[in-house]
């Protein structure tokens, strides 16, 4: 093991750790996700996070009930609902891809989805 080897190991270590940190930071940004609001299985609204709509409220009024949704900074929550149990209101904010708020009596689902650019082959095709 020469000095060059050690230098190479240290260099690769630093490079990979630094880029890992960078990727993690990038992963938390709001670039590739959107909110999908579905009622009775059909998507009725899509919201892409933006600084301009922070704090706005969106009423969802359908035959199945009424919900008021508030958009925060990269997060979203339900602040009012016509359902008896109010579980969706108590759940608070969701922000990560894959998280959902479900209001069963009103048949409403709020889901944060990733914008996928994959087509054709499955991700795990190793």
């Amino acid at each position, binding site marked *: *093991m*020469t*000095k*060059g*080897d050690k230098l*190479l*190991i240290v260099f*690769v*270590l630093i*490079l*990979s*750790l630094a*880029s*890992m940190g960078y*990727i993690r930071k990038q*992963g938390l940004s709001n670039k590739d996700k959107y909110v999908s609001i579905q009622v009775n299985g059909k998507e009725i609204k899509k919201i892409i996070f933006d600084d301009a709509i922070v704090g706005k409220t969106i009423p969802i009024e359908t035959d199945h009930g009424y919900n008021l949704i508030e958009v925060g900074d990269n997060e979203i929550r339900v602040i009012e609902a016509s359902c008896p149990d109010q579980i969706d209101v108590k759940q608070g904010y969701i922000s990560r891809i894959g998280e959902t708020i479900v209001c069963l009596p009103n048949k409403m689902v709020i889901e944060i989805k990733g914008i996928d*650019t*994959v*087509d*054709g*082959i499955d*991700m*795990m*095709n*190793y």
Partner: protein
Amino acid sequence: MKKLNKMLFLSVLVSVGLALSVLESAIPLPITFPGAKLGLSNMVVLITLVVFGFRDGITVAMLKSAVLMLVTGSISSFLYSFSGAVLSCLAMYIGYRFFTKIFSLIGVSILGALAHNFAQVTVATIIMNNLRIYTYLPFLMLTSIFSGYFVGLASTYIIKNLKVSFNILFRG
């Protein structure tokens, strides 16, 4: 006769590499990460490069991944391993030929592992048409330090002994 000897020796090396590849897939790794593996068969390529030279080294590397496809039967992993084998062979040759003063075999083998991972991720990106696959690269780079270190260490010992039997085979 010497040519035949060499051919036989190279085919033995290829089959040893195949056996190592099959064997290492049976070894459970503490991390389950697609693409991370021990790369024991890289040892064979490195040894061939050092003992026989570049042309035989890249032949062994290409043959190994082509026959491994027949063993495992998965074509998608053949694409990854073939591109990885060619690029890692190139990187190790450059490392061994021009930077011997800076790197020992350990450094050379780490370079090869890095090149292998880079080629793998690049091919995956092209196949899946998704640039975000490159986020795997830092993790793979970390694993390639460990696997490269041990492969290089093992190769140093093997080459020391192999050169003796090599002399008996081809010059005796």
